[in-house]
């Protein structure tokens, strides 16, 4: 009995503990706040109390971001987070926007739908941000999409799936949701066009059983008829598998004219090696845009030679000529990123770059009113030159890219080179 009473007491302590901890508003190390000095911490606390007050001129422009910075899908969120933080620093170093600092508040979803949902609500209701970029995954994006719509807060997703900007019921985009990455559709179109040009049409698909692989696979199957592609094999492997020889052996037995692999992380390198070991070199090998990091070429230890894949401008900046529209942005981004984090650029950081740049532009011209920002994005983002293409949003298109956003490249002498 007494013991029970005490355990009840424990429950109470629990709640109060929670109280204490979050009252203690520690500035956190995740770089949750890019330019957060002690003063604005105090200021922030006050602002939290006064409701809509946060928008008054003395304040900062608050932009929220939710990426899968850690966990199994960190290969997406990590470069996005790094890019966004780098960009925010640069903007503030250059005196901010309209004389106000850009306050970037980043939360880590760990690729978990529940966390993404909670963090977005927190960004909107507590941190009172005026626009949010991310999440990194199609899954998490679809999970938080209703929240953005309900709270009428513009959200620029960094995930691929076209479902994010396509409401099945209305057939139009969701009002408050935009996205920067090329949809898998475009990557698939780029690959299929390339295959068709070489009149290869008997293909085998290999994909990883993660969200990334699955949605790519879906598009590959969906668009195959339109491009007259015949899929002879549709194999899968787990994101942590050690060896894909079995799958490839089966494919070898079906002797397709080309293999298309859709995956990210270490497996897309392993699969290449197994493909070499099995002596299937004469079958052209296509990777998804997920392959878009020189690191993968390195890791493949020569196995990547002659592999095709569709990439956005930022991955092939050096190959661009000053006449290419994206030359400047791409070069600059690549230089800065390498300088700051000294690691090769991955395909995904660019999505965050595009999203945050658009937001910055919107803030600069219409301030931090949510509705205004949303309208600006829809009406005024025309021919915006980003890392992954030239964006033109419209009421019917909240992705704003065409399939030319991808350039087909081939791996030659351990580096990308444009393929004919």
């Amino acid at each position, binding site marked *: 009995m007494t013991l029970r009473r005490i355990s009840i007491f424990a429950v109470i302590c629990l709640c109060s503990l929670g109280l204490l901890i979050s009252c203690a508003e520690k500035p956190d190390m995740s770089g949750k706040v890019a330019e957060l000095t002690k003063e604005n911490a105090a200021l922030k606390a006050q602002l939290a109390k006064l409701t809509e007050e946060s928008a008054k001129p003395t304040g900062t422009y608050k932009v929220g971001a939710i990426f899968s910075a850690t966990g199994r899908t960190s290969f997406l969120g990590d470069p996005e987070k790094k890019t966004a933080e780098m960009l925010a620093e640069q903007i503030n170093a250059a005196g901010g926007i309209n004389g106000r600092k850009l306050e970037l508040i980043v939360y880590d979803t760990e690729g978990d739908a529940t966390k993404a949902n909670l963090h977005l609500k927190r960004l909107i209701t507590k941190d009172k941000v005026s626009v949010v970029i991310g999440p990194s995954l199609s899954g998490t994006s679809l999970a938080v999409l209703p929240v953005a719509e309900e709270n009428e807060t513009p959200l620029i997703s960094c995930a691929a799936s076209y479902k994010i900007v396509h409401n099945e019921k209305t057939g139009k985009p969701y009002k408050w949701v935009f996205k920067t990455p090329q949809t898998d559709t475009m990557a698939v179109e780029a690959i299929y066009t390339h295959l068709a040009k070489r009149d290869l049409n008997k293909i085998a698909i290999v994909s990883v059983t993660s969200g990334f692989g699955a949605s790519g696979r879906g598009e590959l199957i969906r668009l195959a008829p339109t491009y007259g592609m015949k899929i002879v094999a549709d194999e899968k492997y787990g994101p942590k598998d050690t060896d894909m020889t079995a799958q490839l052996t089966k494919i070898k037995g079906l002797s397709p004219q080309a293999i298309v692999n859709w995956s990210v992380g270490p497996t897309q390198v392993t699969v290449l090696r197994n493909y070499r070991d099995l002596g299937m070199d004469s079958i052209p090998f296509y990777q998804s845009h997920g392959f878009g990091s020189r690191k993968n070429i390195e*890791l493949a230890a020569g196995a990547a030679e002659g592999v095709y894949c569709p990439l956005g401008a930022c991955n092939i900046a050096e190959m661009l000529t000053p006449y290419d529209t994206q030359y400047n942005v791409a070069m600059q981004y690549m230089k800065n990123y390498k300088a700051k984090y000294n690691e090769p650029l991955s395909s995904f950081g660019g999505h965050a770059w595009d999203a945050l740049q658009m937001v910055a532009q919107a803030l600069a011209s219409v301030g931090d009113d949510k509705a205004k920002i949303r309208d600006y994005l829809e009406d005024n983002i025309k021919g915006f030159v980003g890392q992954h293409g030239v964006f033109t949003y419209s009421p019917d298109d909240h992705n704003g890219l065409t399939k030319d956003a991808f350039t087909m490249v081939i791996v030659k002498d351990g580096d990308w080179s444009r393929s004919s």
Partner: protein
Amino acid sequence: MVNHHPHFLFYGSGMEKITLASQLLQYLITGLTVGSIYAMVAVGFNIIYNVTEIINFAQGEFVMLGGLIMVFFHVTLGLPLILAFPATILLVTLAGVLLDRLAIRPIRQPSVLTLIIATIAASILIKGAAMFIWGKDPYDLPAFSGRNPINVLGAVIQPQYFWVIGFLIIIVIALSIFFDRTIIGKAMSACADNADAASLVGIDVKRMILLSFALSAGIGAVAGITVTPISLMEYDRGVMLAVKGFGAAILGGLGSFPGAILGGLIIGSIESFGAGLISSGYKDAFALIVLMVVLFFKPSGIFGDIEISRIKRF
């Protein structure tokens, strides 16, 4: 880096159709290789289990550490294989010792669940630490003897496969000698049978437990070192390997070394044949379904001792 495919004309054009026979052979080879890795992990589980009746869910992290530390010594520091290999094993063994000292031994009144949670906590910690040291990217290790595959009846074998299987055999032989011939080995098996009796005859059970952790950490390291050239290694690779290894240990019967080997090879082969012949999406499920069915008919695995399995309660 090693040039990867200098002479692929050796097996002619890839378009030439591969016969079903050589396909099946290929599945077998792949299955046995992957299975050997699982087997090594399973053996690691058994060593600790035999002495402590603990299932060490951090076993997979030993494998991960083995791979990444080897990368550090061999690639980053450029130590020759012959030095990097023992150095790595030594370091991981140390990790094993620390695990026992810091996570297992301090626990008072340990229940099976508490111990499971403790090892899970440890694995979370180790994984986190690895993430800080090496980041989230995968790392590669040059294959011990090149990457030129060998052609056998239309199937191909990576030289590294021989290393994996070879090391498994070496480990098995070494262990059986250790447990049957050496005093310490016998002492350890004594603890396995009956810890109280063992301590009565003057065996320092605590030391034996420590030793068991060190030993299985070392074996985990070997698994990691040998598999990294095949599949690369990154900080969060451990969990899945641990699950597969645990499956192998259970399938073979906890505590039985031949069981662990058999279990590992079976699971590996089911995965590879399942992927090749039925559905690659469900290949992991096949292995697990077989495992469950076996347990339903033989509740203590293939070589398991029913009496041992009866002791446990949560």
